[in-house]
């Protein structure tokens, strides 16, 4: 199963429309999409507006691949669950986000194992192929909490 997510906040129809096309061309693959507040309703893949966090984790656990916007939350879940992730950044010019910070995020994340960047929706197909063939997972050495020195300084601020 491939799990597609636009994160938890704003619509990202460009990703959903592209993945609906992909699902039509790959009818043998089960695809589930969390479409958020998007107005486009998929015809060729299962979809839901928003999954509760526990259900979300369950779905990622069962997925072979995540296809997501370039949000840190999506990367964290993929890394935590050791899944490959294809990421398409939201663009401010399309009003997909307030700023272009997802372009910065993807530039930084794209060199990490298991992260497959699609800079434009036209690149989604090849990024998915690479991710399926590559067999690399995100976050092979992922820890569930921030590094200890950072935690210690935050703790010190909280208690003094």
């Amino acid at each position, binding site marked *: 199963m491939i799990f597609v997510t636009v994160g938890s906040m704003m619509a990202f129809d460009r990703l959903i429309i592209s993945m609906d096309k992909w699902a039509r061309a790959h009818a043998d693959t089960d695809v589930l999409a969390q479409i958020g507040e998007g107005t486009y309703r998929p015809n060729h893949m299962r979809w839901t507006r928003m999954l509760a966090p526990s259900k979300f984790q369950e779905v990622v656990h069962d997925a072979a691949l995540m296809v997501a916007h370039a949000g*840190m939350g999506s990367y964290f879940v993929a890394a935590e669950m050791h899944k490959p992730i294809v990421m398409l950044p939201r663009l401010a010019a399309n009003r997909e986000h*307030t*700023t272009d*910070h997802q372009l910065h995020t993807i530039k930084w994340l794209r060199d990490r194992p298991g992260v497959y960047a699609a800079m434009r929706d036209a690149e989604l197909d090849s990024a998915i192929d690479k991710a399926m063939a590559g067999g690399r997972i995100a976050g092979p050495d992922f820890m569930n*909490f921030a590094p200890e020195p*950072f935690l210690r*300084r935050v*703790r010190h601020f909280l208690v003094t």
Partner: protein
Amino acid sequence: MRRLLPAFDGLEVVFVSVHSAYAEQVSGNRFYAVRDVTRWDRIGLAILVAQLTLILLRERPRVVVTTGSAPGMISLALAKCLLRSKTMWIDSIANCEQVSLSGMRAKRFCDVWLTQWPHLQRTDGPECWGAVL
């Protein structure tokens, strides 16, 4: 924020999120959901300010910590102005080329103003104490 949870160990912590579904991830703590807004949404902004004011007056936090975006910035501003709480802004790790717009606005309401990227550190702030990853 969940990646910082060990730092809160044993303290009385109240969580506020724009998603009510996140309550289950911090069960055992008091939890409030508030309206999610962007800077495009004026009416939402007014509702959010009212919600946060009520939460702050009820809970009277000694410290307020946020990892950002507009609701987090407004929380810090209100907590500082209404309650003189200690405040900490941790700019999202997603902002690796510049501090977020909300982060820039939060600066004047922060006791500690953090970026997670060493190269964004400046002598007049923000500081970098490390990253959640």
